[in-house]
């Protein structure tokens, strides 16, 4: 890989000639050719070019070189600079072994070489490697590209980037000059896109607006998802039976599995009450279990403990269990309403809805 970075002209040429598939073979002989080609190019005068052109012209045999004639052109150029006698040995090492192009390369070179002979030698300008390479890459007519070459060749007509350039450059400066930015262009653009730009600021703003609108709709959709059409939940109000079913001091655990409620007949602040405790630990939401022998609720997750009245006394639970609303229904049964909860630390247990006096 490292070799590729410092490829000499000869190497590039060899690689080009070897073609895509055979490129592997090319770099090997290339280094041999490189010093020769470069060394000769400098020393040989331009004159032999004409000489080279003659025999070349005699054998005009461009063999089907549609795709890359330029390579051959360049080779011819390079070779033309040397004597014809020297051309052959130079080409040999340069061309990779399997390359059948060695012959064709030498022959079709005639045509471009002749072309060079026509225009090139008269001006006495020597092509430098940069222009040769550029020509090779462009795959088109060889011509001066670099600054050194520029005067030798009429500058290409500057193609105005915008058709409606206010002042197209008519003169032919050595290098194409960028047309001055026309003032009219801006006005035109404003006419065309002004509306959206005024409405939304820019395309960036448009993108972000669309994104946020989409995001907002998505969030709304998500929020809707949280309220299902059908909810298979036990009703929040349910009857638990008559008062007689809850003797003093009893913690009724049979409603836990279905409703998540303990119905307790106990004493709170000097008053005998029946209340419904929510079976959710106030620490992290586990379900405590009622331990009859110890007369306490005990949470299996972090060991919080609550008295029968729901007051927290051990472990990390920061506040008492919550109460649900409870009342005596019209038929005399007790009815628990889970839609309302009462918290002791907020003083809500004084609310008459949070208990039924016995």
């Amino acid at each position, binding site marked *: 890989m490292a070799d590729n970075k410092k490829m000499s002209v000869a190497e590039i040429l060899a690689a080009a000639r070897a073609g895509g598939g055979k490129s592997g073979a090319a770099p090997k002989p290339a280094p041999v050719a490189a010093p020769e080609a470069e060394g000769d190019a400098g020393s040989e005068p331009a004159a032999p070019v004409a000489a080279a052109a003659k025999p070349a012209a005699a054998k005009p045999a461009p063999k089907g070189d549609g795709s890359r004639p330029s390579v051959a052109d360049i080779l011819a150029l390079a070779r033309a600079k040397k004597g014809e006698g020297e051309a052959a040995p130079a080409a040999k090492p340069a061309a990779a072994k399997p390359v059948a192009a060695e012959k064709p390369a030498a022959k079709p070179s005639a045509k471009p070489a002749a072309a060079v002979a026509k225009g090139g030698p008269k001006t006495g300008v020597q092509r430098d490697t940069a222009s040769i390479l550029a020509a090779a890459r462009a795959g088109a007519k060889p011509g001066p590209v670099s600054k050194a070459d520029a005067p030798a060749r009429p500058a290409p007509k500057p193609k105005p980037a915008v058709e409606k350039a206010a002042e197209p450059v008519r003169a032919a400066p050595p290098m194409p000059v960028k047309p001055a930015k026309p003032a009219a262009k801006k006005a035109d653009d404003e006419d065309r896109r002004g509306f959206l730009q005024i409405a939304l600021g820019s395309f960036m703003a448009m993108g972000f607006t669309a994104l946020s609108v989409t995001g907002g709709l998505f969030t709304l959709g998500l929020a809707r998802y949280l309220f299902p059409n059908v909810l298979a939940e036990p009703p929040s109000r349910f009857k638990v039976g008559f008062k007689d079913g809850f003797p003093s001091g009893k913690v009724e655990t049979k409603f*836990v*599995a*279905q409703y*998540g409620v303990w119905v307790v007949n106990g004493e709170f602040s000097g008053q005998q009450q029946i209340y419904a405790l929510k*079976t959710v630990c106030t*620490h*992290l939401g*586990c*379900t*405590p*279990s009622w*331990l009859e*022998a*110890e007369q306490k609720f*005990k*949470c*299996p*997750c*972090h*060991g919080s*403990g609550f008295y029968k009245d729901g007051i927290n*006394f*051990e*472990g*990390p639970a*920061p*506040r008492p269990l919550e109460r649900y609303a409870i009342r005596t229904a019209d038929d005399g049964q007790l009815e628990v309403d889970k839609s309302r909860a009462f918290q002791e*630390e*907020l003083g809500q247990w004084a609310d008459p809805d949070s208990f039924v006096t016995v």
Partner: protein
Amino acid sequence: MHSNGFFLKDVAGFLGGYYAFIALMNGVAAVLLWKRKNQAGWAIVWSVFAGAMMVLASLALSGSESMVPALPSAVRTLVNKLSGPMLYTVGTMALFTALFVFRKFFVQPMVAWSILNIAMVLMGLSMADENFAAIVMKPDNVPIVGLVFLLAFFTWVATKQAVVNDERIAQGLPPMEKLDDEKVLVWPDLVYTELICMVAVSAFLLFWAIFLPAPLEEPASSVKTPNPSKAPWYFLGLQEMLVYFDPWYAGVVLPSLVVFGLMAMPYLDYNKKGNGYYSIEERKFSYLTYQFGFFVLWITLIILGTFLRGPNWNFYGPFEYWTPYKVEVLNNVDLPQMFWVNLLDRPLPRPPQGAGTLSQIGYILLREAPGLVLLGAYLLLLPPLLAVTVFRGFFAKMGFVRYMIMANLMLLMLTLPIKMLLRWTLNLKYIISIPELSLNF
């Protein structure tokens, strides 16, 4: 509940193989030591030990339950009686300190080998206890047993290299790592090693999954919590932290601080030494802080949560039956209660009926004044105080901002052991307790 015959029959086969494995392990060690010539004494010790293990193995495999080697019942009862969260935590801290102070002794290969053997034999003897085996051999908990041995091994390896390096540095020699400075390429050397490890670990996990399938529990229910309800093993330290703190602190603030603190470490560390080699002597503070946080405040809590926390999150001794009816008398009290009621013998400051919001907040602040003052002093007064006393050098080298971050991270880390000790000694629940705002500390 004591071990019965059926259980012992089940476990005897495993124990026989286990003791035979220890015997084999020591036999190989004896042969290797014998070949080294200069360790002949130790070679004899380990070969004798291997013979003893073979005796234990044959006893276990004898087919008679009464012959299975086990700890005497009196010892088990004593261990159960002595064990408790207080002893456990203080004990692990003491062990940590001892391992650090006497590290030169513990890193000797023969000492480490002896400790490994003792640990394995003790575990084998304990395994003959039904309650111990039920917990240790539970598929969930097997990784924790592995963790204990693996962590001990890797800590030993690192500590040994650090001790060797410290000795060399004291003699003016470069650390061991500098001698072997050969560069190894990531690709292919490291990547190949990783590939091989990946294949080996995958195969191991496959076999593990086949032979120790995860237990299938009852269907989940929002109104029924398993008792005990345990987090995944790697979060058991977190669950143990939650016993002592409000969820927002132990579940959100402390874990975030752990992550933040780990990220901040390279920026807080001004000590250029110990870069690229193991050393304890050159970075005592960093070493101790990290190991304390990792071992005492994380690993030992995982072990505590796995093996010693039973139903209702009560503490159970290693040989104790996990009965959900164990009564543990606890009565945790908040600091305001202690201060106003127990100390000053006055009722808690309560806002009068129908007081405005501002006056309610005033009363809450008054009620929580002792806790607020204590916490404020801890977090605001201690760092500057430490800066001019213990951490004088740190403050000078780190500058104000870095020092304050370091000091606060450290103080917040220490809130955990402090709170744990306060819970056990004074039955303290919360230093600041504002249930009205769900704010407790």
